[in-house]
């Protein structure tokens, strides 16, 4: 240690030089100034590497560590040169001082070189502001990303919720569908059992106009088994008279032009007998739908039809009987009316024969008598023809009837009765009325009945003239309106409600059939019959009949 120390001291002890303080003449102020300044610089320099070391220790990520280490060494060396500055004030170790300066120079050059080396890299380093900006951008981007992530998460949650919901509703739907299917199956079974057990026939017709299904009742009704029906259709089993209409209706139903139709027609059973049926097609489904064919409900109405026919026949008979009854009431007048010309004929022929039996017969007078006979014969035959026109046993038959002509014929028929009952007739017939589509005999029966009632109503009236007013005109609805008015006792308000009832009568010897039958005749002709109180006295009976569109063509009476 002593050797080493002596070597160093040898190096240091080249004490041939004078201390640096000598240069300052040892002036204490100057020595103090240099010593203090160098001491402060040295202390400062020595503190800097510590600060740098501390910095590097904290910022392990720092990129330019080499530069920092070099800088630290350089500063340390610089500090030491200042320490040596103080040292050499008193000790002239200028070699040591120079050596330290050399070391400092080397480190300085290395540091400077290194600094220039890293300069581009250091310049490329972002500044704090740039970093802050970048950081800010990064922050906002991160914020953005966070929000996006949040939105994504929410969307995801929503999706999951929806999936859950849909799953639940699907499950619900499945349950519901299952229930519906069960209900449908139950309904189907119910309908099937109704279809099978139904007392009315039910058949399905496909678009080829063939039966595809038919229930028991339908098979029983037609006499065909289902296998046979499959090769037949509604047209084939329909009576030939109704076939065309059936074909048309079926075409319309198949074309979808008609939603439903109800028709009464005849079927021909397998055994050849005809039956009446009422066919109702409630719904003609879309042919593209799964429901196959047109369903029809078919009722056997043969018995009802027969009953209706019987009823019609009975009604016709009743109408005829009623007509004859009315004519019976007229019989006194009619007999009188026929006997008048017959009496004239008989008297004239007797007188003529007696005249001709004479010696010098006046032939001119005889000719005159024969002419009168001829005229009276025509007169008698006119009456007979008129009666025959109304009592003939013809089936009801409708044809265009000139209403005014028909009214005049009735008045001619009742002429004698009117005359006999001291009734004066006023006619107010509107000319140029359209004809009515009617059974002339039945129509005249109505008028005759009303005329006879009117005459009857005036029979007991003694304090005023007996006036029968017959009028015809068009009403507001362009119907033909016929009125029969009398100056009789008028209608009892209590009786008025019942005058059209069958067997209701206010007459001592009345049957109570006339007005009831008249009413049914008018109704059957599409008209309306009613009674009103007369304008001054008595009653007025009015009836309407639909007018035909074309102008009147007079129909001959009788025949």
């Amino acid at each position, binding site marked *: 240690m002593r050797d080493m120390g002596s070597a160093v001291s040898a190096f240091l002890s080249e004490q041939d030089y004078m201390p640096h303080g000598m240069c300052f003449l040892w002036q204490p102020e100057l020595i103090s100034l240099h010593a203090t300044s160098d001491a402060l610089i040295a202390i400062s320099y020595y503190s800097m590497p510590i600060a740098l070391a501390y910095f590097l220790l904290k910022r392990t990520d720092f990129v330019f560590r080499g530069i920092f280490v070099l800088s630290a060494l350089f500063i340390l060396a610089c500090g030491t040169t200042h320490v040596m500055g103080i040292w050499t004030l008193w000790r002239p170790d200028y070699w040591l001082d120079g050596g330290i300066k050399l070391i400092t120079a080397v480190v300085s050059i290395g540091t400077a070189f290194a600094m220039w080396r890293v300069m581009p890299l250091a310049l490329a380093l972002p500044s704090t502001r740039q970093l802050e900006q970048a950081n800010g951008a990064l922050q906002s981007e991160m914020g953005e990303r966070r929000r996006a992530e949040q939105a994504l998460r929410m969307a995801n949650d929503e999706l999951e919720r929806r999936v859950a919901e849909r799953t639940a509703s699907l499950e619900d739907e499945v349950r519901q569908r299952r229930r519906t299917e069960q209900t449908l199956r139950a309904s189907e079974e119910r309908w099937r059992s109704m279809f099978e057990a139904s007392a009315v026939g039910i058949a399905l017709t496909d678009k080829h106009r063939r039966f595809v299904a038919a229930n028991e009742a339908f098979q029983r009704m037609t006499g065909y088994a289902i296998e046979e029906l499959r090769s037949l259709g509604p047209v084939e089993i329909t009576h030939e008279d109704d076939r065309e209409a059936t074909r048309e209706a079926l075409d319309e139903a198949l074309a979808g032009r008609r939603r439903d139709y109800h028709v009464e027609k005849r079927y021909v059973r397998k055994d050849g007998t005809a039956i009446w049926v009422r066919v109702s097609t409630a719904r003609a489904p879309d042919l593209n739908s799964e429901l196959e064919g047109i369903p029809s409900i078919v009722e056997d109405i043969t018995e009802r039809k027969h009953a209706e026919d019987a009823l019609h026949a009975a009604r016709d008979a009743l109408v005829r009987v009623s007509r004859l009854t009315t004519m019976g009431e007229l019989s006194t007048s009619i007999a009188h009316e026929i006997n*008048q010309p017959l*009496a004239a004929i*008989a008297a004239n022929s007797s*007188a003529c024969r*007696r005249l001709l039996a004479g010696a010098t017969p006046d032939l001119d007078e005889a000719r005159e*008598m024969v002419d*009168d006979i001829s005229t*009276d014969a025509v007169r008698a035959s006119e009456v007979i023809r008129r009666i025959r026109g109304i009592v003939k046993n013809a089936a009801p038959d409708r044809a265009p009837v000139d209403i005014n002509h028909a009214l005049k014929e009735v008045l001619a028929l009742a002429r004698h009765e009117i*005359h006999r009952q001291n009734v004066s007739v006023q006619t107010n017939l509107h000319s140029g009325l359209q004809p009515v589509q009617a059974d002339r005999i039945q129509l005249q029966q109505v008028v005759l009945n009303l005329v006879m009632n009117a005459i009857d109503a005036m029979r007991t009236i003694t304090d005023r003239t007996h006036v029968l007013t017959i009028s015809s005109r068009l009403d507001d609805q362009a119907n033909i309106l016929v009125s029969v008015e009398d100056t009789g006792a008028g209608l009892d308000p209590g009786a008025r409600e019942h005058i059209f009832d069958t067997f209701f009568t206010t007459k001592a010897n009345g049957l109570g059939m006339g007005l009831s039958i008249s009413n049914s005749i008018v109704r059957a002709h599409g008209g309306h019959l009613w009674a009103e109180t007369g304008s001054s006295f008595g009653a007025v009976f009015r009836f309407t009949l639909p007018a035909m569109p074309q102008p009147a063509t007079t129909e001959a009476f009788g025949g």
Partner: protein
Amino acid sequence: MVDGQRVVMIVDDDEPVRKATRRLVKSFGFVVETFASAEDFLGSDRLDKTSCLILDVKMPGMSGIELQRHLIASDCRIPIVFVTGFADDRMHSEAMQAGAVGVLLKPFREDDLLDCLHLALKQNNLNGSNSVHHTPGIATET
């Protein structure tokens, strides 16, 4: 008409019948006068000249039966032969009970009418001339 001569009167509203009956009665050789209604007959001054009345039953206005009643009520006993177009038993018996010579149904046979006329004239001769005590009131109204 020859004044004082017995005349057969015909009352009928039907002109052809009236005319034919008139010819027939005339062919029997009687003097005949005709009236279209009972009112016309009553209104005429020929009642006391009437030896027989051929009377229609059914007429507008006064009927034959009403005329008969009226004449009886006036104590005018003209023999009446009724002619009617329609048989009515009640009317028939009423007319006969009131003293009618006969009721003939139209169309009647000439012999029946002639028989009735003879009977009526015989009755009229027995009765003497028709006694009219007062003019029927209705005559003034026609």
